[in-house]
C-alpha cells in the first residue's frame, strides 16, 4: 500500500467528526494489522474500486460510537440502536468521500460502494481485501475508534 494513501483517511476522519459531530479525534500511531478481526464493537465498511481495489473500515468501541453519534444527532443514545448503526454507516460514507477527494488530487481515483455496518465484539470484516491492512487508532475524549484501510 502506498504511504500517501494514509493521510487522506486520517485527515478525512478528523474533518468529518469535527464538522458533523463537534468532537476532536486525536490520531495515534498507525500500525499494520494482521487479522480481519475488527478492533471495535461496531464497524462501518465500504469497498473501494478504481486505481486499485480496497476497503475502508471505521470501527468504534461501543462507548465511542454512542458519544460520537449522540453529539452528531443532538440526542443521547445509550445503546447501539438502528439509528446509531445508520449513523456509523453515514460517517463511514463521509470519511470515504472526504478521503477519495484527497486521493483524486494525488491522481488515484476510486469509486465507493454502499456502506454496510457490522455489530458485535470481535466481529470479522470479511470484505477486507487480500492486501495488508493498516490501522489508524484515534481517541475521542477517552474513547477508542480505529480507521482501517486495505488496498491490494
Amino acid at each position, binding site marked *: 500500500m502506498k504511504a500517501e494513501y494514509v493521510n487522506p483517511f486520517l485527515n478525512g476522519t478528523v474533518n468529518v467528526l469535527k464538522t458533523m459531530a463537534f468532537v476532536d479525534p486525536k490520531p495515534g500511531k498507525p500500525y499494520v494489522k494482521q487479522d480481519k478481526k475488527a478492533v471495535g464493537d461496531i464497524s462501518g465498511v465500504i469497498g473501494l474500486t478504481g486505481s486499485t481495489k480496497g476497503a475502508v473500515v471505521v470501527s468504534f468501541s461501543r462507548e465511542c460510537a454512542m458519544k460520537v453519534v449522540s453529539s452528531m444527532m443532538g440526542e443521547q443514545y445509550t445503546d447501539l440502536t438502528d439509528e446509531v448503526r445508520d449513523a456509523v*454507516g453515514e460517517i463511514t460514507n*463521509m470519511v470515504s*468521500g*472526504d478521503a477519495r477527494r484527497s486521493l483524486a488530487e494525488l491522481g488515484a*481515483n476510486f469509486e465507493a460502494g454502499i456502506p454496510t455496518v457490522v455489530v458485535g465484539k470481535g466481529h470479522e470484516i470479511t470484505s477486507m481485501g487480500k492486501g495488508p491492512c493498516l490501522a489508524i487508532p484515534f481517541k475521542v475524549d477517552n474513547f477508542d475508534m480505529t480507521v482501517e484501510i486495505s488496498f491490494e
Partner: protein
Amino acid sequence: MPADTNMKILIVDDFATMRKIVRNQLGQLGFKNLDEADDGATALPKVMSGGVDFIVADWNMPKMSGLDLLKAVRADENTKNIPFLMVTAEALKENIIAAIQAGVSDYVVKPFTAQVLEEKINKIFK
C-alpha cells in the same frame, strides 16, 4: 431577499441519519416546513403532487439517484423551476459537470455545517 422560512423543503436521502442532520441544520436556520423522502423514487411523487418549494437531495441513493431525480424534476413543466441543492459525499469533477448540465441550482459536499448550508441557500434564493 432572504429565503422564505415558511417554504416547504423536501429532504431526500437514503440514510435516516443524514435526513435528521439536514433537518436539524435547517431547523437551526429557521426553516420549519420540512418533509422527507428516502430516495428519488419516493421523492418524485411528492414533488409532482405540488407544494414543494426547495429540494435538498443526496447524490448517491438506491432505486433513483439524486441526479435522476433532478433530471425528472427539470423535465416537467410544473416542477422545472424548483430550486435543487445536491448533496454529495465527493466532489468529482465529472459528477459536478453532470449535475450542472442537468440544471442543479448548487451543490454541497459532505461533511458540512449549518453555516455552509445557509450560504448555499442564500446564494440560491438571492
